[in-house]
């Protein structure tokens, strides 16, 4: 390498020699690149979960709470959390989403202090977790506003979802094909409907499968021939805003928040917060308990009502962390 120009003209010769060493070197160091970038941005590494309870002045709770889970509950809990922070200025509550199962997983693993779930805990899960119901939501069958059908029976629904009734005229509607909208596997609405109709999820003959609540509403609003099922609160709200949407009475019971409240409506699901039975340190447990108490208090019931849910009447179990 006497001549500089030599290197410039044929850098590949020099590069390929070091190539293997460089490859090995970086395959080992790749993960560290990001750590390096981290330092470059000049930031210290943060604390992941909320186990940072500092000694609090007096009995005022303080620290940080992390909640993850169901996207249906997240807006509700986020709002409750904001109010909780207003009352307890030393507490920060971080609400994250990602689905019911994620909430349960995170709560079990201790990645989050509290998990949010829109389905009941499975027996295996309830061995490790304590549920607290904060509100109730119903599942209503909905059609387009122009559809003459206003009421539906369990038996008809069963036939529709099994693909045996294919035309609205068979149940008193116009001579039009029924477009059946279903929900994706694992959603609590699907489980609830399957249990109610006594059918297997795998036997349902659907034309559309929706994910989130608002998506299933839009499927119906945009197609006069569609039937779907979705959160009562969300459907009521959309109908009251003038969207062409109709909630079908089920076996003669009106699908409304009032029916859920009175306990007559058969399709109701709890919105729950779950907490680990063991493994929370004392300070954190106290904070979690304070938050659960706050979330089930009558004082925040208006938040649930505002989002179309039915606040829990306190008749259901409130978890006491023992």
């Amino acid at each position, binding site marked *: *390498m006497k001549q*500089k120009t030599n*290197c*410039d003209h044929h*850098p590949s010769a*020099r*590069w390929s020699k*070091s*190539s293997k060493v*460089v*490859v090995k*070197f*970086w*395959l080992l160091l*790749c*993960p560290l*690149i990001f750590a390096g970038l981290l330092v470059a941005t000049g930031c210290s590494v943060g604390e992941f979960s909320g186990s940072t309870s500092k000694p609090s002045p007096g009995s005022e709770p303080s620290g940080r709470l992390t909640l993850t889970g169901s*996207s249906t509950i997240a807006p509700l809990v986020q709002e409750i959390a904001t109010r909780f922070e207003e009352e307890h200025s030393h507490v920060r509550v971080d609400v994250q989403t*990602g*689905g*019911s*199962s*994620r909430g*349960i*997983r995170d709560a079990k693993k201790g990645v989050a202090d509290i998990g949010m779930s829109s389905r009941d805990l499975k027996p295996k899960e309830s061995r490790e977790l304590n549920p607290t119901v904060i509100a109730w939501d119903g599942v209503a069958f909905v059609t387009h506003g122009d559809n003459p059908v206003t009421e539906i029976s369990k038996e008809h629904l069963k036939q529709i979802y099994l693909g045996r009734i294919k035309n609205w005229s068979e149940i008193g509607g116009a001579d*039009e*094909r029924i*477009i059946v909208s279903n929900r*994706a*596997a*694992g*959603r609590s609405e699907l489980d609830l409907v399957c249990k109610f109709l006594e059918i*297997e*999820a*795998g036997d349902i003959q*659907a*034309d*559309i*499968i*929706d*994910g989130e609540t608002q*998506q299933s509403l*839009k*499927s119906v609003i*945009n*197609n006069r*021939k*569609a039937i779907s099922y979705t959160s009562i609160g969300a459907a009521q709200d959309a109908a009251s805003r003038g969207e062409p949407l109709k909630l079908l009475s089920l076996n003669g019971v009106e699908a409304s928040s009032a029916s859920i409240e009175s306990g007559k409506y058969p399709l109701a699901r709890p919105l729950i917060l779950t907490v680990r039975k063991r493994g929370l340190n004392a300070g954190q447990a106290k904070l979690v308990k304070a938050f659960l108490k706050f979330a089930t208090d009558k004082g925040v019931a208006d938040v649930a009502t505002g989002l179309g849910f039915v606040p829990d009447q306190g008749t259901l179990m409130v978890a006491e962390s023992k």
Partner: protein
Amino acid sequence: MISAVTRDAALAFLLRSLALASAGIICLICLFVARESWLALDSTGTVNPADTVGSVNADGEPFQLSNLVNDDGWNPDGQQFNLLPMIVGSLLATFGSALLAGPLGIGVAVFLNYYAPKKIGWAVRRLVEIMAGVPSVVYGLWGLSVLVPMIASLSPIEQGQSLLAGILILTFMTIPTVVVASDAAIQAVPANQIHAAAALGLGRRATVWSIVLPAARFGLVSAIILQFARAIGETMAVLMVCGNIVKMPNSIFAPIRTLTSNIALEMGYADNHHRSILFLSGLVGLVIVSVLMLAANTFSKTQRLST
């Protein structure tokens, strides 16, 4: 003073390292996805025959990799995990959108550089760049409320959520990528080549067709590859307009579910075996993309060498 040779060596090392680090990200992601799908892989018995941690299917047999193509359908509750309809759905939607967005996008890029009046060109460029930044959920909402009803009125099965809706939404979403990438490539064609073309008295079409496009081919191939990658990885918008039925589509109006929307739909609500299978389907998707990309890059390399 550091000598030029050392400085060059350092630069060579740095550049190579940065390039390798960029490539390393995908390795990390593959490792992560493989680790998360381990439960499913493990229960196949190919990894550890004695272990039956994973679930058994409806017939009481342990999960096999072949189940991913042989099962009766996709029904996680019944332990049926056939990915084939979703792989086909993904590929159809992606290739469909590439067929539309490629020519359209390159057409717009040519327009911007050789046909557009200056002010119109400026405005269209801004429009393109804005469209590139519109979140996919907005495309999805728009598709659901405008496109889907439109298709429903044309469709023989009277519903709008379909393969066609997916192809169109993906096309709209990815055109900006194609335009920006091919615009950059076309602009970079050396001016002297175009002056030479002008001196030869070539018309606009001839200049573009026989000088500019060949000279910019690397960038154009890049644009198509980017479009393809973007389309195959798209989740949210496709989820909202495709109907998500897991069935082999028999027409362009049939609803489909793509691999990615399957993951997005079910991941948050899946646990144990189901969750692990979803990651496995992600791994399958990555393998498919890798094969396609390797083919594309080898092809474009031989192209470059032969010309």
